[in-house]
């Protein structure tokens, strides 16, 4: 078992004919993912990496039975692409595209929630279940099958940590890059709750960053609802505070948002917090 990506996952790639779309379609297929179709308006009828291209998501779903999408379309068209995927009834939509305006992301995240579609991202590396496949852009080589669930706000740092886990002989059920934007489709709490329910997942790794209060909220959730051991790293202990403008941010965060606040909250919830990302495998192995 794994979360989000499983045996039944059939993926379409929106923006499949673009440079990134093509490259990662190939990579996803090589990883063993069932990529069943692509969508690029105006290119319907063609094929990319042996995958048929359709004019609309609805058509692609009808013809291929797809249930998931990986979105590479440019930021200014991304909102409509997600709307289309959600409207077509897909269960999982992974939005790789970065630089999507907040209000656009907010709208598609709301729409997805209304229609019970899970959105990962935007501005994320996607989801990889080593046993079943990957939706997104994570480098394929670094994964190994195992019992650890990884959730991360950061892209490259995830690779760093997953790589270290694999080298230490610790495999993964699923790695979820939730994305670093302020408005994202699935946050720590939502992904934690899935891992908690997944029987194959025995331990969790959580990679956070300074800014926002998502890690503090995750800590609260872990304390009340997560029975599995959680190991975390929070990036940005030594990063400078940004020049904040206005009072609104301070009112919302009320002193939370710093690395100290996050680490304190997580430790209070029983989470083992690593000083450096590369310390995580050692901590998991009890070294």
């Amino acid at each position, binding site marked *: 078992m794994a979360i989000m990506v499983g045996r039944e996952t059939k993926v379409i790639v929106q923006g499949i004919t673009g440079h990134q779309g093509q490259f990662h379609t190939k990579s996803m297929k090589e990883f063993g993912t069932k990529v069943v179709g692509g969508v690029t308006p105006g290119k319907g009828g063609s094929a990319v990496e042996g995958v048929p291209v359709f004019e609309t998501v609805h058509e692609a779903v009808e013809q291929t039975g797809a249930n998931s999408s990986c979105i590479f379309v440019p930021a200014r068209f991304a909102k409509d692409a997600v709307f289309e995927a959600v409207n077509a009834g897909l269960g999982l939509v992974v939005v790789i595209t*970065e630089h999507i305006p*907040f209000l656009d992301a907010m709208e598609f995240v709301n729409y997805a929630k209304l229609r019970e579609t899970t959105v990962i991202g935007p501005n994320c*590396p996607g989801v990889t279940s080593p046993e079943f496949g990957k939706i997104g852009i994570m*480098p394929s*080589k670094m994964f190994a099958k195992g019992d650890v669930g990884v959730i991360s706000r950061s892209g490259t740092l995830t690779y760093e940590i997953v790589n270290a886990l694999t080298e230490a002989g610790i495999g993964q059920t699923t790695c979820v890059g939730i994305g*670093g934007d302020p408005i994202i489709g699935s946050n720590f709490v939502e992904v934690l709750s899935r891992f908690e329910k997944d029987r194959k997942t025995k331990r969790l790794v959580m990679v956070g960053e300074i800014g926002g209060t998502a890690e503090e909220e995750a800590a609260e959730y872990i304390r009340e609802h997560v029975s599995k051991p959680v190991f975390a790293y929070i990036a940005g202990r030594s990063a400078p505070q940004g020049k904040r*403008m*206005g009072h609104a941010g301070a*009112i919302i965060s009320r002193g939370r948002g710093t690395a100290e606040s996050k680490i304190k909250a997580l430790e209070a919830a029983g989470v083992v917090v690593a000083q*450096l990302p590369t310390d995580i495998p050692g901590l998991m192995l009890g070294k």
Partner: protein
Amino acid sequence: MAARPVDEVRNLKLFEYRAKQLMGKYGIPVPRGAVARTPGEILSVDYPVAVKAQVLVGGRGKAGGIKFADNLEDAKSRAGEILAMNIKGERVKSVLLEERLEVARELYLSYVIDRSSRSVLLMASGDGGVEIENVPQERIAMVPVPPFGYSPFISKILKTAFGLNDDQSKQVDALARNLYGMFISEDCELAEINPLVLTAGGQIIAADSKVTINDDALFRHPEFSEDMDDLTPLEQRAKQEDIAFVQLDGNIGVIANGAGLTMATLDILTINGGRAGVFLDLGGTDDPKKVTRALALMKDAGPGVIFLNIFGGITKCDTVAMGVREAVQTIGIDIPIVARIRGVNDDIAREILKEIGIESSTDLIEAARKAVKAAVK
């Protein structure tokens, strides 16, 4: 993925006078005022007048950036004083001359993109003024605006939160509705009025305004291109390259890919006794030229050593190495480079770097220690 500069989200900060122009356009009452870049530009204004430094940092009032004047001569000399100031490292380039309001009460009103509720959050308090963040939570109304738009019930909440009579409530309702309209239409990340003033005459006026625009939505708002000038020349170059660039006070120049890895790199340097002087996040790229330009930027920032920490994924290691080679060979990088390379095509990358005399490691801690040592020399 591109990085956000540390704990800030991507945004364009507007100066107060620009924020007020924008609010005025949306029918929000703001004080009469005029902006001046030199005392000579001040011709005639309604006196008494407030002379306000136009800076983006907070705490301007305490730093002496707001003064008052009763006549033209007075205004010019106050303006001259303020225009010579440097507030928390920010040079004052212009002043706003504004009618003085007869303040009966100071309120607080803002909209902000809120991560937790994934909505535009309205915040309102009857206890406005500079110390609003210290007002107890229960005295600040926080209302996530429904995604279907500003709703009439919000007006009732504002009336209660502010303690207003019917006439004042009508004014505030129109203002809050228009401010929300502005927030959405202009892709704001923050629109804050603090204080929102109830005058002795019973008028509601936005006395101070802070507005930031979501950078990623600027393609919909080309008119803000003129508001970019608060960046340093290096920051501006970085922005054009889509490179997150932050100047700090150490002497190690960090180049990494991805916000998380960049921050983790700072953490590792700090733990090992080093201090970054600048950091620079390549983000995701498949263009060696971007890497070359990033190195040129780093060269001009002038750190003592460059620590290149790459974990290849989207950004392949060989792409980075090619960019570095190009920079070394054409621009000439006279600062020592310590490299740590892992991930996609790291073997090719190490070969390329070796050719130009850069030894690279795969071990993060080892490389970090080496960079710290090089910086101390």
